[in-house]
């Protein structure tokens, strides 16, 4: 917790200004506490020992009311400073998270539990607020209030001060002893919570499958079991957290009681004045109060830090692509040849290389199909060409320059990509199709819809293109998603287009239409076409076989010699591929 807490508090102006403000509020609080005790003791003493009338004490009572107002303002001030600080800090963390996901690791999203991470970045602010508004002020007060009170107590009655001096430092000692294990337990609790939400999401998404197999009721039991485990773990953590509170409370109560006894005995012996004795007694509980509050809020505070930790865990992942400090001007794939030169790729921390010694070239304006089974590494080649990943070994170049020497954002601006399962954003269908598209001509959009075969869908939708799709909106089938992805690529006039399995989920009629669309899409553009379908691969000028992370020879699929030889060539290749796998199988 401490490393993350320090990181949270060091990072940025929001945290710094909040700390300064809280420090000032803390100092004022310490003064107010002492003033309040002194005034109360004076009034009681004057009335009790001195037999003063109410009218004689009106001035100190008015002052007491003023101190009450000051303490109220200070309490409110702590709350406000902490909460606003937490919100600013969380907003900053969110900003960094988004930047990290969209700029430094653009391909990392697939591995993340998106719901869990988003929850940490949104709901996490609540626990961060508790941390900043409830816990942190008390930490500041523990540093300021006890010393102040000890000094005042020492002036009034040194034996009581010694009692306080002995009991008070015991509190932090116990806090550290108990706090350590509470910290570990809190981390476990947070993991249990994340596990539960991920488990629940998984189960809910799979509810149709569960119901089809009559297992929904059994899953309900599992949810109960996971919930029970969560409860047990949480109760375990809470018991530890509450035990530390119990110890603090005991020390505070016994300390206060001891001060009362020490003061009482001295008073009875006539060794101490009543006013001084009462001042010390009034201050004694105030000395322990911040410690008790720190203990009471520790558990909630640790939650806040855990939420931040979840985000830091993502931020700490190394970038998947490197941005050069002085980028070279970005060449266009429309004029420069793209070339893979001895490219190896393995995901960091994974032994098995996804790609091994991949070399090929893609001339401007030509189309290249990567043909192979799923899992062969075709999509990784696409990610490297799109600069969603950088090669582990070797290089990818365009126009003679390593892609790593360009500004990745400029490169992305001139590429279009249709992944296997296009993500549908929670927005209108129109906005989904016009994703990243600067021009918004109705005619072009109509053409795109016709080309990919979406016009029937649009016509059938009650709100047409304005229908809300994606999360919380109308669900799109895989085929529809695929078409939306293609329409996106159509609308963006990028010189380099990468299509990943564009015909995979479509019915034969649609496949035919999409294949025609691909052909026109390829006109004058450089096209990388990933497919396991030979008939789709035949659309490309060249075909490259990908198998187990290696590429085979480029087969010319020249349009001039088509249909006869081109088709034959692809058939040859796929036959060869089959023979190869057959011979390897035996």
């Amino acid at each position, binding site marked *: 917790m401490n490393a993350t807490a320090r990181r949270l508090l060091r990072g940025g102006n929001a945290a710094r200004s909040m700390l300064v403000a809280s420090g000032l509020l803390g100092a004022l609080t310490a003064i107010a506490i002492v003033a309040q005790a002194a005034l109360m003791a004076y009034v009681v003493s004057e009335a009790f020992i001195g037999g003063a009338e109410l009218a004689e004490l009106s001035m100190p009572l008015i002052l007491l009311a003023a101190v009450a107002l000051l303490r*109220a303002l200070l309490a409110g001030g702590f709350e406000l400073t902490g909460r606003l600080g937490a919100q600013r800090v969380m907003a900053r963390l969110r900003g960094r998270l988004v930047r990290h996901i969209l700029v430094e690791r653009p391909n990392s999203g697939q591995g993340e539990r998106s719901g869990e991470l*988003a929850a940490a970045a949104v709901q996490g602010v609540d626990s961060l607020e508790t941390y900043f508004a409830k816990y942190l002020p008390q930490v500041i007060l523990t540093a300021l209030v006890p010393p102040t009170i000890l000094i005042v107590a020492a002036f009034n009655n040194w034996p009581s001060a010694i009692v306080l001096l002995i009991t008070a430092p015991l509190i932090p000692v116990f806090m550290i002893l108990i706090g350590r294990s509470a910290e570990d337990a809190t981390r476990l609790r947070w993991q249990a919570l994340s596990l539960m939400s991920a488990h629940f999401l998984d189960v809910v998404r799979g*509810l149709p499958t569960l119901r089809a197999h009559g297992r929904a009721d059994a899953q309900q039991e599992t949810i109960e079991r996971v919930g029970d485990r969560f409860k047990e773990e949480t109760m375990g953590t809470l018991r530890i957290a509450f035990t530390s509170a119990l110890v603090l409370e005991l020390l505070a*109560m016994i300390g206060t009681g001891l001060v009362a006894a020490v003061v009482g005995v001295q008073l009875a012996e006539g060794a101490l004045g009543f006013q001084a004795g009462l001042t010390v007694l009034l201050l004694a509980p105030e000395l322990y109060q911040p410690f008790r509050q720190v203990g009471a809020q520790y558990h909630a505070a640790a939650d806040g830090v855990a939420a931040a930790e979840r985000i830091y865990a993502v931020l700490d992942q190394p970038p998947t692509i490197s941005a050069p400090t002085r980028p070279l001007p970005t060449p266009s794939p429309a004029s420069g040849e793209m070339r893979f030169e001895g490219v190896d790729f393995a995901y960091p921390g994974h032994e098995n290389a996804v790609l091994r010694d991949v070399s090929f070239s893609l001339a401007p304006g030509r189309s290249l199909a990567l043909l192979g089974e*799923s899992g062969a590494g075709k999509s990784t080649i696409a990610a490297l060409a799109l600069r969603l990943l950088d090669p582990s070994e070797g290089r990818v170049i365009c126009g003679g320059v390593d892609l790593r020497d360009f500004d990745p954002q400029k490169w992305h601006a001139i590429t279009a990509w249709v992944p296997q399962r296009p993500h549908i954003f929670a927005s209108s269908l129109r906005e989904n199709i016009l994703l990243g598209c600067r021009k918004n001509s109705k005619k072009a959009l109509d053409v795109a819809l016709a080309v990919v075969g979406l016009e029937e869908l649009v016509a059938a939708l009650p709100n047409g293109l304005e229908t809300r799709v994606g999360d919380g909106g109308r669900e799109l089938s895989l085929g529809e998603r695929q078409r939306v992805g293609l329409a996106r690529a159509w609308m963006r006039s990028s010189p380099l287009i990468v299509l990943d399995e564009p015909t995979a989920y479509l019915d034969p009629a649609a496949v035919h239409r999409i294949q025609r669309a691909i052909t026109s899409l390829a006109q004058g553009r450089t096209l990388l076409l990933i497919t396991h379908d030979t008939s789709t691969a035949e659309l490309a000028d060249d075909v490259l076989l990908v198998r187990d992370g290696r590429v085979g020879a480029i087969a010319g699929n020249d349009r001039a010699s088509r249909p006869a030889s081109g088709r034959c060539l692809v058939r040859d290749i796929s036959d060869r591929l089959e023979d190869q796998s057959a011979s390897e199988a035996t």
Partner: protein
Amino acid sequence: MATGSGSAAAAAAGESTRSNSLRGILREGGVPRGKFVLAVTLSAAAVLAGAALLGTSGYLISKAALQPPILTLTVAIVGVRAFGVARAVLRYSERIVTHDIALASLARLRSRFFARLVPLVPGGVRAGGADLLSAFVADVEALKDLYVRVLVPPPAALLASVAILIACLLLLPTVAAALCAGILLSATLAPAWSAWLARSGAQRQAPARAELTGELIDAIDGGAELVTSGADAKLASQIERSGERLRTIQMRDSFAGSAAVALSSLIGGLTVVAVLALAVAGSADGALPGVAIAVLLFLAMGVFEAVNPLSTAAQSAEHSRTAAGRIGDVLDRESPIVRASEPLPIPSVGALELSGVSFSYGDDEPMLLRDADFVLQPGERVALIGPSGSGKSTIANLLVRFLDPTAGSVTLGGTDVRLVDADAVRRAVRLEGQTGFLFTTTIRENLLIAKPDADDADLTAILTRVGLGDWLASLPKGLETLVGEHGDNLSGGQRQRIAFARGLLAQSRFLILDEPTAQLDRENADALIDAIIGDTPPATGVLVITHDDRSVDQFDRALALKGGHLVSYP
């Protein structure tokens, strides 16, 4: 023991309380009455012990100031210590009991939430992941406060206040009156104010949070596509704006909370000053012994420990109410199928049949099926061909009773499936859904869904049958291999084959496979279709729903869905 105080209250209020009210939530979560009373008693007793400690201390030093023999102080000194220890132990016990109630009730609510969601998916509710996540995690977590901060503090504060007021009344009635006024003010004004201020914020914060969460999920899941289409800056600034909008609302909430904190502190502080002034006056009048001035001062300070949490309670109640409302909105929807009141047994033989079935999701929705007739005999291998999105999956959903037809009937062995138990229908007719859905767990667990008592030999055999034997043998962890989030560690083909294996494992009378070859290349698709036709037990009727007509010849017959009508294909 199991009947809750909440349930008693809700029952008294009538059956109309649904889960979108706090009472409904309390009834569903079930607060054990005994534990609740215990928590309240412990909480009040802890406050009283604290007040007694301070009061006795005040008495002790006041008495001592009169310089009596030290022995006369012994009782007070012992009392101070006893109250101190009692206070610490009581507080600890109260917290344990309260949290125990809260966590047990939450666990129950989660599983109830799921149970009531089951009949609604698919069909009744679109299972939007982020929405449900935010509804579940955020709303259910918010409900924890309902138990910890809302339920116990008010009765505990009442109990403790009454006891302390009685003690004050015995000492000096004017002080009791002032203290009573202070308590009432603090227990009503501050909570009401903070609740009122928080209400608008709480109502607006939830949609802003849901929107921001949805956008973040879009950024995480669709990040690569945003980047490659150059639309990342737009979403990033949209997230920034949503975050700022949320922060604006949160700031309002913060002001409300801070003002309430200040207000309750102020009321408490001023009441103590008033108590002190009245005690001084009483002492001067001779109505109060001077020894008791400090006692009253300490008692007044002690009582606010019980009253101050009420502001937080009121604010938390508002947040819980909003969360409960959202949970209720989902759960109170109607099930898309009608439950048979006295289910008939399913005939053990006979065909699965659609007769004159029409279907639409609602009055305003398009008719997906029109007067469709279809018979699947045991042992038959039938293909249903149609372009994606043509309503083929609706037929599957009707056959397994995820939906009931708008007109016409679905019969199994001649009996209308609406008259039999839906689970019994699904035991006889298994569906493997569209994308080969896999759970984020091991291969074994994914298969066991179909047949929980299958052993490893069964599972290995079935995977070998669908062509995954070599692959399985190559896995270091075998059946224990984790498939990743929804099978992301596997190729599409592997996912589909595992899903088919799952369908086979069920050994049902009819097997419906929706797009089993969607992500496979030609060779793999052909091999899988061969396996489906050849390796499914001969007596099992198989319906394969596909957009791919290349393997049509291998089936006994093929149908196509055109414009909502079922016709034979080609």
